[in-house]
């Protein structure tokens, strides 16, 4: 099987979805084995695609594989449905298919006994199919369709336990918030199409490189070709902001933790939320061709997200929400990397983040499963009861902090290195500060959950490591988290059959061979260790220093607890502006459109019919008289007109 047949990868989970949707309730175990077989098949199919892709490459010169079919045709304009494999796709396929497989296996144990067990696997299959299509799409229209598909699955799965009002609200919030970005994304796609006349990504690149974006006049606003392109890519980026939870559309991701934990691991950590990063990396040639402001915006929003999420993580008490903030933190770093012009760093971070963040979520799922608590104020001391979970969670925590030699270290260093080289020293300093804050809150999370005395003795008493079906994915992910970062080294890549390290596989324009920057590594390690030590000081034992610090910095603490009041601000806007406007529109619709225009004209007809029906007496002489009178009338009219 060659790389052109990569379309079979999403086809398998898609087929599983159809089977489960139609026959799921007649199948034993809700048909979970079909979903898992399909995603396992997709994971297996990834290898021949990878092998074929590497075979065709000549050194670091890769040949992307394509296959497309005619989708829609209007006159001489046609839209094609196509799949496309290049290096970025390969990285995404590896992460998505592998993590999806592990998460589904884990879910078998985690979701056991749930009344909607079969429906869960149906949604998961649809998600896997959409996500894999998104990764493989060769044109923006198909990408957008898959993009909405994953958003819809995210909505279904966040609201999986919709009987809980908070889950239903969170699902709605996630869907609406991401839609705001998606509208921008669609506008961006249409702006590109308006000039280039095609949705095909490679053709748009060719068009842009030829200087095809000419001066345009939009609604009387004269734009230079470059400004037009810049506006278009900024709209594309709006989609990424929504999907990847960047400031100011980050509010949905912490709330999305209402979904089952494996869902958070797969959708809200490893795959869907990185779709925005993937999309920007995929469209990167356009971002580079556009004005510098485009990448400045990407870097700036990324950095704002990093700093906000890291600080909010310091005071959050829900174990999953802390990890959600760490996800925002990581996503922000990926955008900082992209904004600094390094696709390599962003994709490397995305790759290892998929493993260590899925690990953290799944491990927290084990904790929640065992204790039925997810507030870290009620946890503590679990390491004694759940040694395996504690160990893998520890590995994930250290990877997130970026401790050498775990995967997170290499990826984060690539990002910092890119910022150091291509961005101002201020950005670099801020990024380094975020490393310290990350270490601080991740240490807090680990210490408060797993070490020292248990604050809820009952929950602690009945907790234990999960069954092998849940532990196995954790261990696999922990191994990858530990060693995954070594792909940056040339010899590791070559041993795996790649032409060299990660930088010689995924790059923009020129290969970026791994270049270990001692200064960056020393700074970041010092800050990470400093963060861990400080965190330990603050939150070990009874966490007295942290409590005192919280009291001393009461306003700051309150601001962070209230998530910088951004959610409140949005709520205020919705309550006061959106709902007021909505009330006016609803009044207009009810009274003017419905009651007056629609019901009014219908009522007029009814009234007229009622009144006029009495003219129909049924008496012959009346009709005869009317006829005669009519004829006489006509005759008189004729006479008058003649005269």
């Amino acid at each position, binding site marked *: 099987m060659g790389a052109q047949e990569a379309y079979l990868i999403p086809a398998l989970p898609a087929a599983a979805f159809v089977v489960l949707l139609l026959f799921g309730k007649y199948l034993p175990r809700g048909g979970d084995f079909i979903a898992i077989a399909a995603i396992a098949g997709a994971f297996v199919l990834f290898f021949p695609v990878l092998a074929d892709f590497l075979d065709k490459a000549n050194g670091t010169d890769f040949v992307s594989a394509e296959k497309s079919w005619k989708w829609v045709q209007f006159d001489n304009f046609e839209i094609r449905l196509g799949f496309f494999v290049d290096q970025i796709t390969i990285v995404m396929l590896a992460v998505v298919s592998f993590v999806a497989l592990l998460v589904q296996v884990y879910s078998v144990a985690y979701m056991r006994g749930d009344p909607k067990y079969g429906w869960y696997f149906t949604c998961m299959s649809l998600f896997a199919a959409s996500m894999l299509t998104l990764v493989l799409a060769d044109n923006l229209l198909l990408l957008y369709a898959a993009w909405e598909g994953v958003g819809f699955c995210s909505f279904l799965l966040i609201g999986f336990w919709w009987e809980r009002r908070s889950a239903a609200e969170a699902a709605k919030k996630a869907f609406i918030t991401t839609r705001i970005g998606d509208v921008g994304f669609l506008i961006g796609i249409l702006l590109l199409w308006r000039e280039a006349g095609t949705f095909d990504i490679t053709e748009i690149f060719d068009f842009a490189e030829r200087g095809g974006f000419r001066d345009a006049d939009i609604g009387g606003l004269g734009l230079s070709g470059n400004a037009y392109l810049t506006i278009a890519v900024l709209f594309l980026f709006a989609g990424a902001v929504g999907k990847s939870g960047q400031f100011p559309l980050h509010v949905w991701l912490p709330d999305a933790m209402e979904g089952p934990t494996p869902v958070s691991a797969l959708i809200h950590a490893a795959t869907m939320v990185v779709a925005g990063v993937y999309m920007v990396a995929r469209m990167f040639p356009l971002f580079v061709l556009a004005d510098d402001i485009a990448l400045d915006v990407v870097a700036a929003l990324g950095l704002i997200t990093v700093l906000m999420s890291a600080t909010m993580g310091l005071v959050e008490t829900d174990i999953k929400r802390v990890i959600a903030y760490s996800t925002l933190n990581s996503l922000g770093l990926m955008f900082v990397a992209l904004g600094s012009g390094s696709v390599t760093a962003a994709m490397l971070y995305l790759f290892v983040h998929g493993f260590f963040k899925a690990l953290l979520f799944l491990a927290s799922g084990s904790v929640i499963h065992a204790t039925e608590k997810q507030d870290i104020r009620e946890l503590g001391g679990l390491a004694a009861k759940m040694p395996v979970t504690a160990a893998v969670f520890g590995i994930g925590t250290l990877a997130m902090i970026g401790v050498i030699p775990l995967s997170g270290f290499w990826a984060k260093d690539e990002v910092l290195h890119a910022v150091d080289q291509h961005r101002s020293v201020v950005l670099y300093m801020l990024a380094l500060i975020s490393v310290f804050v990350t270490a601080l809150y991740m240490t807090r999370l680990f210490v408060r959950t797993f070490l020292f005395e248990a604050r809820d003795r009952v929950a602690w008493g009945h907790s234990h490591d999960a069954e092998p079906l849940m532990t196995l994915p954790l261990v696999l992910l922990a191994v990858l988290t530990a060693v995954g970062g070594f792909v940056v080294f040339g010899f590791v890549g070559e041993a795996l059959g790649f032409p060299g390290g990660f930088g010689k596989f995924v790059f923009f324009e020129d290969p970026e061979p791994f270049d270990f920057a001692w200064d960056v590594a020393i700074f970041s390690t010092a800050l990470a260790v400093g963060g861990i030590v400080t965190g330990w000081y603050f939150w070990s034992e009874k966490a007295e220093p942290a409590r005192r610090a919280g009291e001393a910095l009461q306003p700051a603490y309150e601001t962070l607890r209230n998530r910088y009041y951004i959610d409140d601000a949005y709520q205020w806007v919705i309550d006061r502006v959106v709902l007021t406007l909505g009330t006016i529109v609803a009044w207009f619709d009810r009274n003017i459109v419905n009651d007056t225009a629609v019901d009014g004209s219908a009522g007029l007809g009814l009234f007229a019919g009622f009144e006029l029906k*009495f003219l*129909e*007496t*049924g*008496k*012959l002489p009346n009709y005869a008289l009317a006829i*005669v009178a009519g004829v006489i009338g006509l005759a008189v009219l004729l006479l008058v007109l003649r005269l």
Partner: protein
Amino acid sequence: MIPINNFLVLSSILFSLGIYGVLARRNAVLILMSVELMLQAVSINFIAFAVYLSPQAFTGLIFAVFVITIAAAEVGLALAIILRLYRNKSTANVDEADMMKW
């Protein structure tokens, strides 16, 4: 030759009598007869104009024959309806045949 005005006056009188009969009578048979009067008034017009305007052609005369034929058919139909009405309502008074009203 009798001036054409005489024929026209005659047919107008007949037609007016017919209209009066249709409007004023209540008995269905009488209304039918009044309709016949109107039809014959039209026939007279046809023949008079045919003779005065184009004596060689038979168009007007043929029309008159048509009118008579149609009148006969119409009478057959109308009498059947009136008969049904009488069977159902025991009257031929058109004022009482108002089942088709609102």
